[in-house]
């Protein structure tokens, strides 16, 4: 029986003291009139439970910065300022807003709402330099936003044949070389690069991967041996460079494995294909440099998946330091120009800090996205400059397994919902069709060129 894909979300409250984005200060001239309680639709202001004659301290974490209480206070006793602790969260693209948004998504599983509208930049580096086509958002008819349930978020991992071959009897000739895996969401979870990983987290992530029907990439050394079958099949062992593919033993039931791009990669791939013909082979490589040129060779060598890895900020590790949006486009184009794009799957990892980065990565040419640091942030991680079990402000090692699972489910659920919104607004029925649809996006440099290219006398050309 057909069962529609669904991510169950439920409220999973944080374990740590909230880090409020805004701090409301109630000055001494407050007359406890209760106007703020009436004004606040988020319930940040309440009378004290033990003495209803007094206002309780504002519940800052509920504040959405709408300023209604500030403006309606007859005494002008309320002031609001950005939370000092909040402002210190994260670094680079992992802004306090990104981090707290993930917290909210992981807690409620709902699409984030920003009280006073969009407060970010309209253009900027990285993903902020591109906009997606939302032309269908003004058309609520047809499927529109109400047709979300008909939009597919499934993707395939593995190579597809460029054409079908038939045998003499007219049947499709079996082709074992094309191992293919379908995921209901374009996310895989990758914990191989997390800065910290406790036992409960590992189990929680695995449960989540099982629940989501997606994959968990992890170092095989960390994987417990006594995993039940349904969890083991969710696992993608990520083997280090030193691994000898000739003697490698894959855990039972594993459907996809990942090895590193090394100088001897051709040899490794050949051995792997020989030894594990039905298993999807992913090759992990730092994006940039030679990779664009190398990709067609990978297709020739029948590599199923190319896992392009960027740093935390979404930049290449190589000297160019291109952002993943540019790097992915280049990789995608090199395959498209040879008409072999469908013969390999591209997974991108690193620098995925918000739900919007998923459709944007896919637009630039990725088939699927690997969630990494976001999985940690989902657990209320504050991305401190230094990290250890002892200094952890949220005692991450004590996080219960179910809690970890619930938080991840919520985040992924919220991200998928946002992906659906974007697809709906674009009028697309399938995430597969979004891949590499560059015509559906606007890039800042293109717009700048169009607007000012002539004026600057070709200065912007090169």
């Amino acid at each position, binding site marked *: 029986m057909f069962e529609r894909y669904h991510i169950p979300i439920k409220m999973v409250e944080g374990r740590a003291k909230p880090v409020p984005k805004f701090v409301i*200060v*109630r*000055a*001494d*001239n407050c*007359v*406890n*009139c*209760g*106007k703020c309680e*009436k004004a606040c639709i988020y319930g940040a202001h309440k*009378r004290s439970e033990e*003495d*209803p*004659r*007094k206002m309780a301290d504002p519940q800052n974490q509920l504040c959405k910065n709408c300023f209604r209480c500030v403006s309606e206070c*007859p*005494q*002008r*006793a*309320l*002031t609001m*300022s*950005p939370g*000092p602790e909040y*402002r210190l969260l994260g670094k680079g693209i992992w802004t306090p807003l990104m981090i707290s948004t993930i917290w909210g998504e992981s807690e409620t599983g709902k699409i984030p709402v920003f009280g006073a509208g969009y407060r970010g930049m309209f253009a900027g580096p990285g993903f902020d330099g591109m906009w997606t086509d939302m032309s269908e958002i003004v058309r609520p008819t047809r499927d529109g936003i109400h047709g979300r349930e008909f939009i597919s978020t499934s993707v395939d991992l593995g190579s597809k044949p460029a054409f079908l071959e038939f045998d003499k009897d007219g049947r499709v000739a079996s082709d074992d070389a094309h191992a293919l895996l379908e995921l209901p969401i374009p996310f895989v979870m990758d914990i191989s690069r997390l800065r910290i990983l406790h036992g409960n987290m590992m189990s929680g992530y695995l449960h989540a991967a099982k629940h989501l029907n997606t994959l968990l990439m992890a170092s095989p050394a960390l994987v417990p041996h006594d995993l039940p079958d349904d969890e083991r099949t969710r696992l993608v062992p990520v083997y280090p460079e030193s691994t000898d593919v000739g003697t490698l033993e894959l855990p039972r039931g594993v459907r996809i494995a990942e090895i590193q791009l090394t100088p001897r990669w051709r040899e490794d791939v050949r051995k792997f294909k020989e030894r594990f013909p039905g298993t999807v082979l992913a090759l992990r490589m730092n994006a940039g440099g030679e990779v664009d040129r190398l990709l067609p060779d990978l297709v020739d060598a029948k590599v199923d998946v190319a896992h392009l890895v960027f740093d935390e900020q979404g930049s290449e590790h190589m000297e160019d330091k291109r952002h993943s949006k540019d790097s992915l486009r280049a990789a995608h184009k090199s395959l498209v120009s040879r008409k072999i794009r469908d013969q390999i799957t591209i997974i991108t990892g690193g620098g995925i800090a918000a739900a919007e980065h998923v459709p944007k990565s896919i637009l630039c040419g990725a088939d699927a996205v690997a969630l990494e640091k976001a999985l940690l942030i989902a657990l209320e991680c504050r991305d401190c400059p230094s990290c250890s079990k002892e200094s952890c402000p949220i005692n991450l090692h004590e996080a219960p397994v179910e809690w970890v699972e619930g938080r991840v489910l919520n985040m992924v659920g919220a991200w998928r919902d946002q992906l659906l919104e974007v697809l709906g607004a674009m009028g697309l029925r399938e995430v597969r069709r979004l891949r590499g649809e560059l015509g559906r996006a606007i890039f800042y440099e293109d717009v700048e060129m169009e607007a000012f290219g002539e004026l600057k006398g070709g200065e912007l050309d090169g």
Partner: protein
Amino acid sequence: MDDAGVGRAIYPDAAPSPPVQNGFSAKEETIQGSLARELASLGIKDLRIVSASGERMLYSRDQSDIPRFLREIMFNSSPDVVVQPFSREAVSAVLRFAASKRVTAIPRGSASSPFGGSVPVAGGIVVDLSSMNKIIKIDPAKGEARVETGVRWADFDQELEKKGLTLNSSPSSKFSTVGGWIATGGLGLNSFSKGHISRSVLSLELVTPDGSIRELSRLDPEFQAVFGSEGQLGVVTGVTISVRSKPSRTKPHLVFFDDFRSAFVFARALAGSAVHPSHIVFESSSKFSLINRMLGKDHFPVKEAIIVNVEGEAAEQTFQAFLRPTGLKEEKEYLARYMWNERYFPMKVRKFGPGLLGSEVVVPLDIMPDAIEKSMALCCELGLRPLFEVHFLDDGRGLLLCFYVTDQENILTYTMDAVKSMLITSRLIEIGAKPYSIGVWFFPFSDAEEKGRVQRLLDAKKALDPQGVMNSGKYFSLSGRFGGLGGLAFSPRFMKPAFKTMLLFLPITSRVMRSLSSFHESALSKGVPRTATDLERIANECAMCGACVSVCPAYLIVRDERVTARGKLMTATALARGERLSKEHSDRTFLCMRCKACEQVCQSKLELVAAYDVLEKELERLHGKDQQEIERFIKYAEASPEYDKLIERGLVIGAPRHGMGGGTDV
């Protein structure tokens, strides 16, 4: 909770519907006493009847805290019933009832006068008029306004200001009511330029004991008699009063003198000059030493001072031209402004006792310096350190206030000091002063009143209140306990010779007094009350000026003074004296918005909210705490449009409305 002895709950059971006009909806106490029950059975509209002993207690005193034995032993100062009318028809009905029952009716405004005029001497019905507080009409074109009697001067002035107008003159207690000032002294700020309040009033609405409501114009023979009548003629319910445009600028000036005689020479010359200042005040040096102490720094020289308020640019230049040839130097503007601002808070120094006693008389300016010198000499003899304050009037006289700090916690000292105040007044009247107000405590000096004035009042009384219903047992004769003996003891016939004798043998008198009491000036108390004793101290420091009543949002809703700071502190005093309080009384004390408006207007700068916490803890121990009642009260308040209006206007008029004292930004 146990509902025994509690009347119907007027709160609607379910969601709070918009409150009925004048309808307090907390649980009301049952009507106590036959008189109150009879009155209640009449079903008079627009009337709240107060009969429970706890709330009635508040009406047994006024601003002064007269030693108890005088108040409670000599007189029956506790009213039989208190009513709060909201309309003149209700007043009329109550007066008719009082006349039919041959019970006295005592009108009361905000009770911010210390003379006892609004305090019963032999029971009766107190008519609390502070709820008749509507400003009916302001007519800027004609320069007049019509108000109900219970409007407080501060609120009135605030409304006028919105239309570019201001009051002609006002009492120094700006939280007192319009009707209250008309019925008592009528002299105060700007009396120099605008004269007695009677000059500003255009017509009056008077309800007399026969129930008739009459409008008295300036031409009516009884019109003048109403002023200073202390409730002898009827209840003033409405007033038409002339107002003026607000001057474009006012500037107070402060000039110091080495001796008070030269201060008076200067002030009288100024009064006769072309400057025409709006007001002139003399302050004695001792006032500045206390103010310096209060401010914690010697901001002011400790000298005799004249404060002059000048309105308008032209007058300002005339004043400067007047000042220049005298060679005197005026103080910096901020000091002058500080002192001018202090005009509404004469009772601040009370804190140093705690307690303040004194005398208030009207003295011709010709003999003013002698009067000050002689009373000063007497005070020295009696071991007092007095403060003198003179408000210059338009008729060549001055309103002389002679205060001294006392310690009302020491009952013996306090009683002695109270007697001393009588001696001082007696001495001043000997010299030629007239009593400012009679009330109860200055009854011994009632024969010093102008004969013409007294006759006029007697004639009006005969015409308007022949039965003697209004505030009877006062003014013309004084009633008291022991078959009137208590009052008789206070009569001029008995008291005058007594005071004369005491003054004649002053050295002995003062030695006796000194040996009886040893008064130590306690340091300016600071800090938060922690114990019941601290609470009592704070209660004693309260000047009972009633400012807190006028800003209290809980009072607006409940109309029960027990919820105000003044009421709570009286509850605290009663508790400290070991009086038994009912559970309902205790529950009322918890009704509070914690808005701190009372702290803001408190001229004694008391830490009231902290005091409430201590008081509530004490009461909770005795009677428990009715959490539900508090919650209903809060809900009711929040749903009340009147409360909304009050909050929008700001509880404390003129107070800055922006964050103060909160945490700093990052």
